[in-house]
């Protein structure tokens, strides 16, 4: 088995590349893919040290990584990073899981206006509230219109850093944060254990290419617009760490020429809106219960 670019490695999908190149994984191809992978695994196991072949055994049921799917992901990330400003309307569904394993689906809408690298405004509407997130390069504010509270904290200088901060320090997952992170984190690429091009698929009437990816903790699918604007139009993430496998989906509508003024990114509390703290995650670990 000769590899066009690299010598064979311990990785099953690396060695199986030649066999899969160009396949679309539609219908019956899936089975043959598995067979190729299995053969590659066997071949790889013979060549590799035991530790690595053990790792492969874990992923014997996962599809191989198709270079075309990875390239599409990479091109989308590169394209997203060329956008200076954009607006995205998102229709979102999220499953929560009850104690007994039943999944409950919630819906929400998000309206994001971003001016990279250091400003955004997000409005989120769901059953429980109506929230805004403001970031003007200096401060981050979360404002809950239902409770009429807001919290403002100093913010790092870029959206990318803020996204990490919000998640790590405050437990806030910025809505649609993936849009700022595709292609920026090489770790994310390395987490991918399976990548398949499913084929053309329409999202809101726009033809996309549909890809499916597998990671240790999640399965996810993305629909990327075909043509000169490789934008993500739909994303579905299934969480595998809970046996109920709750799923998150977002369907995106893009505006690549949004109109806004700079005031849109700075929160000015309306009369009667009261300030509260934004709880830090670490502070909570001190409490014992």
């Amino acid at each position, binding site marked *: 088995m000769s590899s066009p670019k690299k010598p064979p490695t311990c990785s099953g999908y690396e060695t199986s590349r030649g066999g899969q190149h160009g396949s679309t994984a539609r219908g019956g191809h899936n089975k043959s893919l598995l067979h190729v992978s299995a053969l590659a695994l066997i071949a790889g196991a013979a060549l590799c040290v035991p530790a690595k072949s053990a790792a492969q055994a874990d992923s014997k049921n996962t599809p191989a990584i198709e270079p075309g799917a990875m390239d599409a992901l990479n091109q989308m990330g590169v394209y997203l990073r060329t956008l200076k400003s954009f607006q995205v309307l998102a229709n*979102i569904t*999220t*499953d*929560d*899981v*009850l*104690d007994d394993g039943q999944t409950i689906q919630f819906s*929400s809408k998000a309206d994001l206006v971003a001016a990279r690298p250091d400003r955004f405004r997000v409005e*989120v509407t*769901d*059953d*429980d*509230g109506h*929230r805004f997130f403001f970031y003007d390069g200096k401060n981050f504010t*979360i404002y*809950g219109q*239902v*409770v*009429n*509270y807001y*919290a403002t904290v100093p913010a790092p200088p870029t959206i990318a850093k803020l*996204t990490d901060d919000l*998640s*790590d320090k*405050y*437990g*806030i*997952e910025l*809505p649609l*944060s*993936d849009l700022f*992170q*595709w292609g*920026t*984190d090489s770790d*994310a690429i390395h*987490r991918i254990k399976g990548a398949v091009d499913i084929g053309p698929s329409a999202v809101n009437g726009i033809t996309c290419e549909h890809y499916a*990816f597998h990671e240790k*903790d*999640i399965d996810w699918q993305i629909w990327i617009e075909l043509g000169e604007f490789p934008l993500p139009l739909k*994303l579905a*993430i*299934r*969480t595998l*760490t*809970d046996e109920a496998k*709750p*799923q*998150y989906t977002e369907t995106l509508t893009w505006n690549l020429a949004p109109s806004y003024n700079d005031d849109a990114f700075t929160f000015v509390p309306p009369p009667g809106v*009261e*300030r*509260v*703290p*934004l*709880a830090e*995650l670490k502070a*909570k*670990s001190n*409490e014992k*219960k």
Partner: protein
Amino acid sequence: MKTSMSIVIVVVIAILFGGPSLQAQRYRGGARTNVNHNVNVNRNTNVNVNRNVNVNVHGGYYGGYYGGGCCYHPVATAAAVTATAVVTAAVVGSIVHSVPPSCTSVIVNGLAYQQCGSTWYQPQFSGTSTTYVVVNPLDDRRLKRNDPSVPRSMECICTIGCNRPELISRAANLVDEGGTAWLDRRDSHGRS
């Protein structure tokens, strides 16, 4: 007649005993909401109690969560987050998702508090949810009530300036000058 009576009784019993079982369940977790940031899963392993399930009165959970954000927030592990905790327990440091209906919004040093009888709560954002931390009553800790000329609606909460009516008359909502802070006891609850 007797038959219809017993049907009524059965229905009443069903309501009495069938209802609470709905609220006994909780959310144990939720779906991850992004691909690139790989943090949720780790947090999820530490969180079993997330928030109340109230199927009938969903609006009881304000601020909500975005994409499962609530469910990974360790605030939920810091204390039992139950509706009954509001009524029965007012342990300082405990955290609840809502406060009783008849509370008064109080601003101290620019931050909002809820006074509910003798229990004081500090609202906060925990993730994207609003939670309420039981704090030491500001009355015991900092309020000084020894000046009868101070209107009850506007009490000095620290020791400087409590006997200076001219300051009190100037104090409107929050005034913080020379270390003096004022309470503005409003009727509104703060929720809308």
